């Protein structure tokens, strides 16, 4: 197990390295720069800006400088204060007012008074909360719906449940979001239309976001449960005279969830890094906005920070999924 995690860790470093190189190369090869405006920035000011943000250095140098700032941690002495070019995402206090600091993503080019680390620290928790709530919604609806459909295969329950799932997968959040807003916010006035701050604000976006994912989970649960229900050991369990509910929950569901757990990895990473559409529709101050607009703004440090973060979550989520396999199915070994 330890060896597996270590090997996964090395893989993760390789993935993050490749992702960073490809992203860096792509974003610099696209025409237009961070200071392209309809009202053009005078050339002498552009020169100052390029010098200020290290954009006049050779590309390889820029890459090395940026990545070393992100990777190399620092222990700061007492009295250290953050600056626009040095602000870390991870800050751990040490004795004597020293601090261990790691991951300096640099200044944002669009919001020139803000660092990317600060943006992530501020907006990521919002998205993560919403994503977690959406994940709960997805599981709370998806797993039971899939189970009921599988147990009542080819009955009304199955058709209705899977019909709803098809609707859930097909109707995008760009439609379901405003629809929910209209029903519960504008018409019934029971939930706020947009904003953030307390749990009421979370209900609609979490539901809109989670419902789509729940449909995927329901369909997967159903398919995989149907397969497991035909296994010999299930017949044995039933032959032993166990109650049907016991058979389903303890003998089949656990094994049936492996494919579901597989998709939970990317779903979690996706939910954690935000859905731009849902955040915009519900005015949620999450990281999704930064993710999307960083590209149109050519906000290079923000693009790098966001892509690295997403890659990191994806790799970690997949690793956790692999570990969960072993718990669900002892036949799976890490060699």
């Amino acid at each position: 197990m330890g060896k597996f995690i270590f090997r996964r860790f090395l893989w993760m470093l390789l993935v993050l390295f490749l992702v960073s190189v490809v992203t860096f190369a792509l974003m610099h090869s696209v025409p237009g720069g961070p200071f392209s405006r309809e009202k053009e920035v005078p050339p002498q000011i552009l020169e100052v800006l390029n010098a200020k943000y290290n954009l006049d250095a050779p590309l390889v140098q820029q890459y090395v400088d940026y990545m070393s700032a992100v990777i190399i941690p620092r222990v700061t002495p007492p009295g250290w204060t953050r600056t626009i070019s040095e602000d870390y995402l991870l800050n751990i206090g040490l004795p004597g007012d020293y601090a261990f600091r790691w991951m300096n993503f640099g200044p944002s080019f669009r919001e020139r008074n803000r660092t990317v680390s600060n943006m992530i620290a501020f907006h990521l928790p919002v998205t993560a909360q919403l994503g977690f709530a959406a994940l709960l919604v997805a599981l709370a609806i998806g797993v039971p719906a899939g189970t009921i459909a599988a147990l009542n295969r080819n009955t009304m329950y199955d058709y209705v449940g899977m019909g709803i799932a098809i609707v859930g997968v097909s109707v995008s959040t760009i439609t379901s979001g405003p629809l929910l807003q209209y029903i519960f916010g504008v018409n019934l006035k029971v939930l706020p239309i947009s904003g953030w701050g307390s749990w009421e604000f979370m209900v609609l976006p979490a539901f809109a976001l989670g419902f789509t994912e729940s449909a995927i989970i329901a369909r997967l649960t159903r398919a995989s449960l149907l397969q497991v229900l035909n296994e010999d050991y299930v017949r044995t369990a039933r032959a032993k005279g166990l109650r049907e509910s016991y058979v389903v929950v303890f003998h089949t569901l656990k094994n049936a969830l492996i494919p579901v757990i597989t998709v939970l990895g990317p779903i979690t990473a996706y939910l954690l890094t935000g859905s731009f559409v849902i955040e915009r529709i519900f005015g949620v101050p999450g990281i999704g906005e930064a993710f999307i607009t960083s590209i149109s703004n050519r906000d290079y440090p923000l693009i790098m920070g966001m892509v690295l973060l997403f890659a990191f979550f994806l790799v970690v989520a997949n690793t956790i999924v692999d570990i969960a396999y072993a718990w669900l199915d002892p036949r799976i070994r890490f060699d």
Partner: protein
Amino acid sequence: MRKFQRLLALVLVTALVLAVIGGVSAQDDKKVLRTDIGPSDVPTLDPAIATDSSSIQILEMTYIGVTFIDEASQVQPGLATDWTVTANDDGTTTYVFNLIHDVPWVKYNPESGAVEQVMDESGAVRVVTAHDFVYGWKRTIDPATAGDYAYLLAGAVAGGEAANSGEGSLDDVGVRAIDDYTLEVIAPNNWSFNPARFGLWMARPQPQWVIEEFAEFWIEPANFVSFGPFALKEWPRGESITIIKNPYWPGTDALPVPALDEVVFYVIDETVALARYEAGELDRTDTVAIAEIPRIQADPVLSQEFNLGNLECTYYAGFSVGIPPMDNVHLRRALSYAIDRQDIVENVTQGGQRPAEFFTNTGMNAAPLQEDYPGVGIGYDPDKAQEELALALADLGLADASELPPITVLYNTSSAHQAVYEAIQAMWADELGVQVELTNQEFATYLDQRPTFPIWRAGWCSDYPDAHNFLFDVFHSSSTNNDTGWSSEAFDALVEQAAAEPDLQARRDLYAQAESLLVSEEAAIAPIYFYASNELTKPYVERTFASGNQERFENWDINN
């Protein structure tokens, strides 16, 4: 079934409780105006580097210059009570501004919940002085600050351009404090709109002690100080920004003490804003999605709350005059004459835009108006379009429009631009038989690429309400904002002369001649329409409508 009923009852009770809680928290005696400010967070509150309208809107409320622009786009005294103008022998002009005394710097204290005066080390109240102006102006002009808009101020002060380009010294910039309340500015010329430029957002006093202590982080709510009619209260990033009445603002005739206690600007999309407005969660929307306008105008309630006004921007097509066949002036004129602008605003954009025959937006001071100068601009005229096309084809030695080299039109990806350019494409094909291809690119790519395309979409919005900001600042040969590759000595001479001309009518005449060169004789661009602003306001809000792009909330009120 029983279970379902129980569940339904639970849901209903929960909903009821929520509604009650919501209703109670909305009760408040304070006059809080709730509005929106667009889908992206306000990028900065630093006067020296602000570039976008949301940052500038907040600055307009919290920082005041020597002058400011009122709702009618007229220059009014701001922090200066009055000023004297003296012409110097070397062609420069000296302006001496007398400032209001004892306006304190203030900051919102979240613990006491009140706006408080800022004290210096000795415990005395810090007041806004001429020295804060001098520091602010020099910081803006300093190339190290790297402000996008520094050039507007630099061009208005003697020695400013040299200092901003790094060739001159900041010490030689023509701004100094004669005493705490007297500011002397030397302008390199005698242009009549100089006082307007001295009041622009990048020309505000700036708090040296805060900026030096916190560097870039000085604009964070914990550090941000201001002195205008409002102060910054809260700024949960990406969610909203709230300004609160500054009780220490003395109030002037032009800039009264606000009647509103607070203004909350939500960072939301226009569609969300409309939903919240309809649900009574917003008192005013900044802008309405164009697709919603027909529904709003048909609605008996909303149509009464709807206002269409001019937005000080002009939508136009740029011609790259260096790229064949756009180097042929007759072809450019033929294409411009063939655009039915009325048809576009009536049937395509449908948002209250007005057809443009000139480039300069009608809201600008000294702007020539189409009705006063008939035939000078360029409008839809199919006959002239045919004549010009015939001349163009003769010049190029072609028998038919179909023999023209391929022409590609570029616009930045947006369904609205697509609709306009598809209409224009059809007009050119129908009227002239000229076939063009349309292509679109994402915004930053489009900005980079448009000088390489024969025809491209463009728009220009005012920074200060004077025709100079359109004609000189975009198409004078010294401008970096001109992507057409067109320049003209005659045009340069006209806009230079107009800038120095004190008489308003004479300026209008000169600008009309410049427009004639730009849009008709040389047809470097085809003006299409003047933008429109559209907003919704609840009937209990008493407000003014700014013709410029920033509202003046100190003149607004809520009648409870």
